[in-house]
């Protein structure tokens, strides 16, 4: 039973330890982070496929610290542990010589502990505790980046804080409706207030996953925060956690059915996120920033898949979650290698380094193909499942998803071409391949992308499909090659179209980095892009402007109230004072008259009262 506490306690203690270790004993903190993540991985492997619960009563009014390990949470924990171990290995080399090392490792491990806690929690309050804790370390991790990182950290903190508040309300409402906070006991229908509770919880979940409109801190963090953070948190942990919770509320806590309007809402959010984020990714000129927009766009597929509420869509969405975590963290790691070896991620200063860094290039190639949905890599299979579900619910969602695929492929063609191929940029002449400890994680991840694609029955049968259970699957098995030839054909057409588009673009504009300029500067799009680049559409900035207006209005009201007290009241008071002063003219007769009139009134009044 106590074994369930280990995945929380080990990283937590190690994290606190590495916060305490001073800079002089850097080696020690590296040892701590490697061993802690390794142990965590071992524990996750051993615990997987077990069913355990821990229940410690905490308060007399019924809040229990309860954890539950079952198939779903074990799978997420395993994935989290795997990424943590790989990225820890990568970071030890990447972060060498950077500032705030002890803080980075400390937050890294505490993030791991809290993620494990949030995944294992079987009580909504306990989950909220870990969930909010993640917000805290998220702030810390971004803030230790470059000099302007604190602004991004604040932005992330506010956006995620607001959505977490929504989730908190959702949890309260859910608890009120269900009469319990134990997650395994909650099964609510999606009617009346249940819809509201679902939407509130969903906002928390998709915001954690980074969907629009809660995404705008991620591209900023890509530039400001340390790179391993990007590979670890927005690319892997937050997707896993957010989609995990979204699946939990859709499958367990509530029963999402295809006909409900909530399902339409989810699919719409998914479709919009796919299109808008990938449009933004397309025009980026920075390796990391481009990737970060894809990290947003891909969430759209997962939400779209789960939103269909069809078994095929949900399996696709969850499969896409793990696939995305793989190839996106792999892509970020290749970005980190490039940054480490060349000192820049600006695409205009890169070019032709494919020959200098062949292993990195190969890993990039595999992961980029995976994200573009090239068969037989993992991304292809999960996307096909999602297409299947989307097409069944409505052609418009399918159209959005397939358009997203086209743009994704186009943007990765641009990225790969301008960074790794073409003419060698002058400043990259002496570039060398990244050190082995950084290559190992990339190679492992790239191999997993192939493995999960070619042998897709392995993850699907062992990890994904048991989550839904045989009853929900109605005897389907989605492993193997897609059964719908139309969808496969369309995917092939889209990829070929993307390649043609790319070469046409390169030829007409003359360089790989300008390959998508004909989209960027298309008549209407160019103005939209221009405004988007100036953050006209950033919900955070809009929110801040609204807050500014409200603050100004409140200030105006405050001044008026102040005027009432400080000017008007004082003026009236002094008007009285002045007239009273004037009345006291110091003459006997006045004072006598007052006294006599007053006396007369008193006498008359009392006499008439008899």
């Amino acid at each position, binding site marked *: 039973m106590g074994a369930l506490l280990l995945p929380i306690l080990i990283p937590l203690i190690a994290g606190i330890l590495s916060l305490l270790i001073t800079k002089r004993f850097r080696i020690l903190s590296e040892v701590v982070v490697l061993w802690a993540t390794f142990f965590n991985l071992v524990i996750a492997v051993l615990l997987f496929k077990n069913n355990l619960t821990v229940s410690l009563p905490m308060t007399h009014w019924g809040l229990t610290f309860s954890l539950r390990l079952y198939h779903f949470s074990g799978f997420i924990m395993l994935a989290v542990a795997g990424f943590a171990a790989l990225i820890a290995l990568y970071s030890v080399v990447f972060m060498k010589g950077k500032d705030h090392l002890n803080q980075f490792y400390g937050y890294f491990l505490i993030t791991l502990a809290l993620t494990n806690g949030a995944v294992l929690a079987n009580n909504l309050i306990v989950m909220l505790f870990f969930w909010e804790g993640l917000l805290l370390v998220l702030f810390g991790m971004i803030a230790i980046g470059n000099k302007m990182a604190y602004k991004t950290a604040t932005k992330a903190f506010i956006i995620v804080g607001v959505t977490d508040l929504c989730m908190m309300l959702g949890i309260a409402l859910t608890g009120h409706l269900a009469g319990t906070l134990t997650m395994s006991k909650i099964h609510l229908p999606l009617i009346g207030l249940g819809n509201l509770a679902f939407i509130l919880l969903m906002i928390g979940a998709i915001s954690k996953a980074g969907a629009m409109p809660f995404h705008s801190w991620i591209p900023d963090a890509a530039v400001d925060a340390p790179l391993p953070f990007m590979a670890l948190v927005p690319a892997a942990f937050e997707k896993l956690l957010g989609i995990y919770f979204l699946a939990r509320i859709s499958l367990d806590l509530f029963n999402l059915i295809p006909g409900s309007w909530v399902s339409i809402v989810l699919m719409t959010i998914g479709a919009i996120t796919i299109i808008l984020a990938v449009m933004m990714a397309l025009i980026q000129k920075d390796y990391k920033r481009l990737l970060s927009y894809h990290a947003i766009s891909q969430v759209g597929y997962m939400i779209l898949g789960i939103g269909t509420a069809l078994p095929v869509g949900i399996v696709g969405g969850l499969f896409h979650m793990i696939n995305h975590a793989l190839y996106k963290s792999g892509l970020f790691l290749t970005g980190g290698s490039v940054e480490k070896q060349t000192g820049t991620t600006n695409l205009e200063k890169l070019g032709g380094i494919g020959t200098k860094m062949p292993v990195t290039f190969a890993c990039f190639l595999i992961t980029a193909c995976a994200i573009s949905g090239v068969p037989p890599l993992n991304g292809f299979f999960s996307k096909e499942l999602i297409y299947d579900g989307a097409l069944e619910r409505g052609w418009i969602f399918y159209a959005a998803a397939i358009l997203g695929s086209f743009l994704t492929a186009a943007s990765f063609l641009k990225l790969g071409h301008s960074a790794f191929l073409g003419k060698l940029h002058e400043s990259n002449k002496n570039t060398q391949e990244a050190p082995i400890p950084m290559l190992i994680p990339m190679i492992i991840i790239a191999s997993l992308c192939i493995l999960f694609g070619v042998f897709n029955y392995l993850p699907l049968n062992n990890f994904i499909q048991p989550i839904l259970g045989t009853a929900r699957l109605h005897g389907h098995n989605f492993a193997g090659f897609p059964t719908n030839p139309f969808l496969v054909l369309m995917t092939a057409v889209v990829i070929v179209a993307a390649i043609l588009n790319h070469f046409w673009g390169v030829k007409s504009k003359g360089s790989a980095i300008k390959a998508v300029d004909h989209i960027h500067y298309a008549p209407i799009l160019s103005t939209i892009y221009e405004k988007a680049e100036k953050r006209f559409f950033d919900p955070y900035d809009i929110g801040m402007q609204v807050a500014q207006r409200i603050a100004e209005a409140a200030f105006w009201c405050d001044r008026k109230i102040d005027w009432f007290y400080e000017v008007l009241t004082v003026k009236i008071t002094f008007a009285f004072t002045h007239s009273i*002063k004037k009345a006291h003219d110091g003459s006997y007769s006045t004072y006598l008259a*007052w*006294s006599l009139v007053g006396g007369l009134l008193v*006498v008359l*009044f009392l006499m008439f009262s008899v």
Partner: protein
Amino acid sequence: MYSSLILIPFFSVIVLNLPFRTLMKKSAFWVCIALSLIQIFAVLFSPTGSLGNLTEMFFSFLRVDLWIDNLSRIMLLCIGIVLFTAAWVQKELSKDEERQFNFMNVLLLLLAGLNGIVLVRDIFSLYVFLEITAVSSFILIGFNKERDAFEAAFKYIILSVIATALMLTSIGLLLMIAGDTSFATISATLKTSPDKLLAMFAVAIFLCAAFIKGGVMPFHGWLPDAYSASPASVSVILAGVVTKTVGVYTLIRIVYSVFGYSPALTLILLIVGTLSVVLGALAALGQSDFKRMLAYSSISQVGYIVLGLATGSMLGLAGAVFHLFNHSIFKSLLFVNSAAVESSTGTRNMDNLAGLAKKMPVTGTTSILASLSCAGIPPLAGFWSKLLIIVALWMGKFYAFAIIAALASILTLAYFLSLQRRVFFGKLREDLAHIKESGFGFLLSMTILALITIGAGLGFPFILNSFLLPVKTISGG
């Protein structure tokens, strides 16, 4: 024994002025101090009840009955404390032995008059002692023989004469109706008298007389001049006890023990009280003379006492009496402060002062305490008495008056803050750089008064139970 509180001051005056006059010059001050201290201690440790009569031993046909109850005790205590203070202030102000001797003699006469007012049980003796007090006050106001002081004294005389005339008429009418002048008889007769109209006329003009003597609006014309033009020590006595005893105590005694309440009378008291509270505070806000501001503040505070009295409830009366006591203490303290400031800087005009707190720390601190107490800031004594009055008004269902009384506290705070800011806070003016803290007599009396106002605030529950609530026993005759 209590008859000696009246007799000893009289005989002291005689003894001091007999052939050994030159020898006695120095001792006059100490006689005053000793008498005030004896009075304070005698009051604190004495039983209540009949005291026999004052004049029996001289004239068997003229009896002046004396009686002490809890209200009288509190008044005697105030008189003792304020007289003690005033004597010290006068000692500091005037180094001329002859003048000091004369002053102390008048002060002793005043003491006898005040004690008499508080102790007597019939309306005519009350009048006699009122006159003794009034005449002593005229002399004291004009003591420095300045033009302003004479004008002020003259104003006081004129209005006081009107009050006297009204009071004598009333006494005559009451004697006619009741056949006797003792409180008990008049009280009993008024309840059963067939001639209600005449009785009410008598009551009404007596009330007017008390209003004039107490200086409530609109009968206050003499008060600001008298307070501000008289010597500092006299302002302390006038504000501290004379007006309070002559006007307010008389009002309380007459209304509560003799006339009894009627709806009309309650309404009159409420209106007069509210007028005084609000107009007094507004007028105070516009003053730039330190003492004149305090004078208007006195009017405002007396308004509160009248409001408390108006409720007629036990709580209201307790509040009124406590506020009477508190006002004696903090207003005396403020007048001592103003005297200290005037003696150090030579001016009372607040526009010519600033930043004195640094140079005169004791004066500054005690004046803040007194101001806050007056404005009703907890836990100082003034807060509790105002609270009692406002609560009593509310419980008596006089909601509008309660709200006005509570809001007027803000005005009180406003003018006191303006006083503090103009006199004690801020940057010290360059022409005041040389000034020094005031002398021993000032410091002693300021410290004692400030300690009393803090102590009465902190020990409020004890005071409420042992001094204020027993005041209810004075009812009837």
